[in-house]
């Protein structure tokens, strides 16, 4: 028997969520779910792990903070100390309060931009990328569950029973 991919299309996110739980409880693995908006609890129902982007953002922020401290120290104290307005640059800790705004801004700059770059990279989003969704209606009002299996009959009935309004089966070579 050849391998088939089954697309179950749903009209409502709550029905989809119930169906996902039902399908997963029968030990059938769901390949992907496409939806027009984030569905609360779907990641949990699909058994997706928590994303670590927030941790990454913290690390990037720490890097930005370190870069800013090094930059202000190197420029103002080490490389070219100047007496500006009677405020000589003898030691970093004496001048540091004036650098707090810079250090803060650099922390935010690094954290935000590097996190977004990581996000785009992890989700494979870049200009020129083609959409992976099998049905363009998934950006409008349809929710699509994608299952790969040999036995499309059972799965189609199960999806129908749990509320899918449309089933499409495609053979993959």
């Amino acid at each position, binding site marked *: 028997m050849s391998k088939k991919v089954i697309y179950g299309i749903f009209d409502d996110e709550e029905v989809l969520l119930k169906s996902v739980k039902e399908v997963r409880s029968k030990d059938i693995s769901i390949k992907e779910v496409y939806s027009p908006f984030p569905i609360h609890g779907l990641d949990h129902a699909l058994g997706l792990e928590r994303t670590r982007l927030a941790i990454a953002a913290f690390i990037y922020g720490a890097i930005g903070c370190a870069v800013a401290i090094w930059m202000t120290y190197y420029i103002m104290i080490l490389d070219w100390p100047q007496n500006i307005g009677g405020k000589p640059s003898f030691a970093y800790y004496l001048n540091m309060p004036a650098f707090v705004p810079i250090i803060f801004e650099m922390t935010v700059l690094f954290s*935000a931009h590097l996190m977004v770059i990581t996000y785009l990279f992890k989700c494979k989003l870049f200009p020129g990328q083609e959409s992976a969704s099998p049905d363009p209606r998934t950006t*409008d009002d349809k929710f699509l569950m994608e299952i790969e299996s040999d036995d499309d009959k059972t799965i189609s009935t199960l999806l129908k029973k749990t509320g899918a309004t449309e089933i499409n089966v495609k053979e993959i070579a």
Partner: protein
Amino acid sequence: MQKESPIREPLILGNKSYHDITMDVAKPVLAKANKMWWIVFGISLVLFVWWILSVGYTIGTGIGVWGLNKTVGWAWDITNFVWWVGIGHAGTLISAVLLLFRQKWRLSINRSAEAMTIFAVVQAAMFPLIHMGRPWLGYYVFPIPNNFGSLWVNFNSPLLWDVFAISTYFSVSFVFWYVGLIPDFAMIRDKVNEKYWPLRKKIYSILSFGWSGRAKDWQRFEEVSLVLAGLATPLVFSVHSIVSFDFATSVIPGWHTTIFPPYFVAGAVFSGFAMVQTLLLVMRKVVGLEAYITIKHVEYMNIVIMLTGNLVGIAYLTELFMAWYSGVEFEQYAFLNRATGPYWWAYWSMMTCNVISPQLMWFKKLRTNIVFTFILALFVNIGMWFERFVIIVTSIHRDYLPSSWTMFSPTFVDIGIFVGSIGFFFVLFLLYSRTFPVIAQAELKTIVKSSSEQYKK
């Protein structure tokens, strides 16, 4: 005693299905512009041309073509800069602070407010750039080494903090805006008919970065939005605080006050919300978004305007009190001169527009009235421009040496750059309203079941 809280009013009117929301947001992008749009766009374009000519003349000849003199070295340029940066505060405040507070009403307005922020910061950034006189050397503001042509930048200077604050704010706001736009561009991409509009399909396909709405993508999307909101919130407050340091760290009477950072931030939110009102009240009519930007949204924004207007009012009074209480005669004179000197009319326009007129918002009838809100928003915009003018020009036009006391009068170049920047801003905003999804439709769909009229019954 028992008290039952009332059911909140719906944020989406009518029987809107997910598909209806899609079509309502895609419609202005896919349909042709109406006559009204072309008229407003034409006027804005004319003003924009005036801006180009004025800026060209300024750069070609030098900033001597402005009305500045030896006493008043900062006038309209910095006034306009601070005014525009202030306007640029509402967008990120709406999308970041209101996201952290889980305010659902932000979803109908955040996209346009963020667009407004970005376009306003573009206008703001132009003023310091052309004030440099030689804008082609503008890269000197970045930390580049000595042998490159200049000394290192001075990190003790609030003007340099400003460079870092504005550029961080602009780029982070832009990225925040774009992350939210990706799923909505994908929606438009899927709605454009490739047969009739092959180029349009291609453009939206590139803009949407190939978004397909996988479950993992959405999980990351929500995390990124939340963390960006967390980062943008202190950023919003820092930017105008740092702008106020430009004045507060100097020793000019009238500028040298510790109240400036919170006072400027409140003023920025005040003027930003007023500009959001000005734009959205027109846009909801022209683009047909009355079901999404409801009277309730207008009322919420009016409450923010009233609150921040009162904060600004308290700051004005505190300044006056501190001037008297400090016992410094120069400080006292600076404030007396503001209220009763030759610029009394600017001071009292500011007081009327910013402190007295928002008090009318206490009446529910008035703050839920569209026409009244629009007029009041214009008053606030004018009042906030006068606030910056009063702070900047009246503080320096009479300095320590009475023989150098003078007045400031703008030249046609000053006027051209200011009025032209409004034209430039509207050109950008009008183009945006025809080509971008003006409502964050993907996220708006998540609140249909909790906040739309049909599910509230």
